[in-house]
């Protein structure tokens, strides 16, 4: 239900005039698509670890920069982009 909650936040905040981007794990891509979110980055990470593995700041930064990049690159609402790379712990 968390992913639906954030979907409603994204829609409401965007409607108020603040651009949003959300990072969803692959398992909940369908929520972002069903809810027609403005901009979504999909990571192939496990449920509960959307930004990446523990102790990997380089991967975290890579994901966050990719998400923020959608704020400039996306041209229309409903944009869903897959983040390259796998979940590589350790």
């Amino acid at each position: 239900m968390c992913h639906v909650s954030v979907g409603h936040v994204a829609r409401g905040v965007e409607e108020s005039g603040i651009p949003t981007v959300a990072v969803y794990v692959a398992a909940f891509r369908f929520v972002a698509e069903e809810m027609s979110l403005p901009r979504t980055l999909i990571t192939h990470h496990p449920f509960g670890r959307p930004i990446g593995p523990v102790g990997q700041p380089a991967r975290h930064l890579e994901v966050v920069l990719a998400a923020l990049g959608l704020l400039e690159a996306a041209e229309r609402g409903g944009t869903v982009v897959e983040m390259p790379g796998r979940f590589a712990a350790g």
Partner: protein
Amino acid sequence: MSESLEEFKDSFSYGSRNDLSFKFLKRLAPDRAAEAIRQILEAVGTSFDTGEVDELHDLVIRWQVAAYAPEAGSPRKYVYHDAPWALPTKPLEASRVGLMASSGHFVAGDDPEPFGVEDMTQLEAVDRIGEFLRETPVLSKIPRDFDPADLRVRHGGYDIRSAVKDFNVTFPRDALLAAQAVGHIGAVADPLYSFPGAASQGRLRKHALPGWIEMLHEAAIDVLLLVPV
């Protein structure tokens, strides 16, 4: 006492074997859950020889995707056909970037105390997940420059073990600060926000969200990064 396969797989979702990373097993039909477990065990066995666990992790992720995918033709509740759209008014390198996650973080001394409970444990939050799902979510304001030792996380809907070890996996404050340090963004907004996303959708939209939106505008946030967990 005998236990059916259905009872076994269901026990990982708020049952006797509760494990929120594997609660997806409940969503699979018994034969598919059995196949998921077989494949996962096979991958564990392979990893003994290779020392490689990335394939194992990929396998679990693929089963999570399969388990949560809606069944064809199943009724869907939150489907919208219009995508709201607002354009950034300034470049990222000049923007104040906000962070809001449904991660259940808060700082010591500012526990939202759900249902009036002081120092609620993660275990109790898991046990009371049904009550959370009927409640209005409470938003926690988290100072941008918080000391990690002061950060707490509690959320009955996901496996918080990773978030306890490294908050950045669900609440990427440090990545935003790194982006600011190299001039990729103008500034990280202060405070940051988190709430337990397991909540009543009606109450969220009617009672919580309007105030949250007003607060974001008052904080002069230019763009918002959202992290559902």
